């Protein structure tokens, strides 16, 4: 059964239509990726799932329950967390304060429990516990953003461009962590511009172009599709 289901979702900014009727389904336990170029509507879709934006048409269901137009705080409580584009950590708060805020909807003992799991996943964060988040490197901030989203113990974790601006070696580390989080039982929706990287991590993928889904298939099929290779992966392997 689908944990998240988008049916004919339309989203606009004023008169500009950013997303024009997308259908999307994520099953429990999957890693699904949404790829596409700048302005395709990926982040808009993510922000709408979490309730930061409201669709003007269409329906969003989470675990069979209609969540269209609900407030972000309610959606977080239901079990969806987003690690937003550009990390968006709280710069003048320490790593541990950032993580505690991630568990804002939960009890103290639950927070302490999940805190240990996050530190095991990202030992670097444990070392920098009392450091202000604004002084962390880009990669560390990304780990913090993902860790913070995990603190709510979501059933569905949304990751928006986790590889953005990171060195290849850090990207690899972050990807490994994403797979690990998935193995531990969290369903993941990954948005990426780096299509190769996303498709190599995910089970299935959707290709979004100017607000419409133009392809939907298993990740390895997309990875070998001519259209995607030409437009998003490039002819040579150097990406």
């Amino acid at each position, binding site marked *: 059964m689908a944990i998240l289901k988008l049916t004919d979702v339309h989203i606009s900014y004023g008169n500009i239509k950013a997303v024009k009727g997308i259908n999307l389904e994520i099953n429990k336990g999957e890693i699904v990726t949404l790829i596409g170029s700048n302005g395709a509507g990926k982040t808009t879709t993510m922000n709408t799932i979490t309730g930061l934006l409201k669709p003007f048409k269409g329906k969003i269901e989470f675990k069979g329950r209609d969540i269209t137009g609900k407030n972000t705080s309610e959606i977080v409580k239901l079990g969806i967390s987003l690690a937003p584009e550009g990390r968006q950590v*709280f710069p003048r*708060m320490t790593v541990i304060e950032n993580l505690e805020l991630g568990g804002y909807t939960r009890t103290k003992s639950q927070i302490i429990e999940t805190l240990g799991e996050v530190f095991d996943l990202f030992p670097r964060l444990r070392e920098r516990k009392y450091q202000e988040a604004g002084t962390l490197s880009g990669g560390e901030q990304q780990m913090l953003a993902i860790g913070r989203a995990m603190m709510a113990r979501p059933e569905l974790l949304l990751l928006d461009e986790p590889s953005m601006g990171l060195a290849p070696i850090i990207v690899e580390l972050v990807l490994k962590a994403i797979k690990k989080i998935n193995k531990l039982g969290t369903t993941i929706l990954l948005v990426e511009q780096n299509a190769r990287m996303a498709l190599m991590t995910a089970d299935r993928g959707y290709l979004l172009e100017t607000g419409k889904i133009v392809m939907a298939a298993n990740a390895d099929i997309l990875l070998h599709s001519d259209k995607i290779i030409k437009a998003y992966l490039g002819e040579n392997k150097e990406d």
Partner: protein
Amino acid sequence: MLFQQLINGLTLGSTYALTAVGYSMVFGILGLVNFSHGSVYTVGAFLTLIFFTALKFNFFVSFLLSIILTGLLGILIDRISLYPLRKRNAPKVTSLISTIGVSIFLQNLIMITWGSETKKFPLVINRGSINLFGANISTLQIMIFSMCIVLMVSLNIMIQKTRVGKAMRATAQNSKAAMLMGININAIIMITFFMGSSLASVAGTMVGMYYQTIDPYIGYMAGLKAFAAAVLGGIGVLPGAIVGGLSIGVIEAIAAGYLNAGYRDAIAFAVLVLMLIVKPSGLLGKQASKKV
């Protein structure tokens, strides 16, 4: 003489600081200057006076009622004049002008309901005084100063340590990310307005007690001074509001004592202008830096 002026300055400065906190907190959370804050201060002082003299309540009951009602007024101001604009993503300037409108409305409301003449604020605290290093310090001064400091220190602890305080800081630093944590931003904004406005009521009432008079315009200059204090200390930074408030109070008291009482306001604002030229982010303000 210097010590005496210092004491007078610290007394008044602590009330500026208490008012400045309201500007600073709202600025931190909403990114706009709430120009109705000065009028809220006036309403706070008037409410205490009315409960005490017209309705004959016990002074502390009157004070407490005023604190609560003024806090609720703050929430109401946000709901009526700012929330609808926020919902429609109106530009910040629109919200700012809206708060100026509220300010004019409140000031006139006070004049219509209670008259525009100066009212006598009765003597509530026995004004005995102690002598210290040749300066005359009244018990009222000690009370005002210590109450302001206790309130501000507790507010700081609350913001640093408690769950609500952390949610407030998170909202101030990145409201979108705060929402993603499951924080109800509108509740945080309401709490912010409640706290800022009730502190303004405390400040207004104390200044009323101190000078033993109030009129519908007291909030105008007090509001400007407190705003200057918030900017001087670094707007959005709470310890900055305290440092800024006390500095402005002391500077103007010393200017009044050594130069001429007529210069006190001019000197206070001149210091602000100088300060902003040297360090635009204020005494304790931090330059925003963003990692890309």
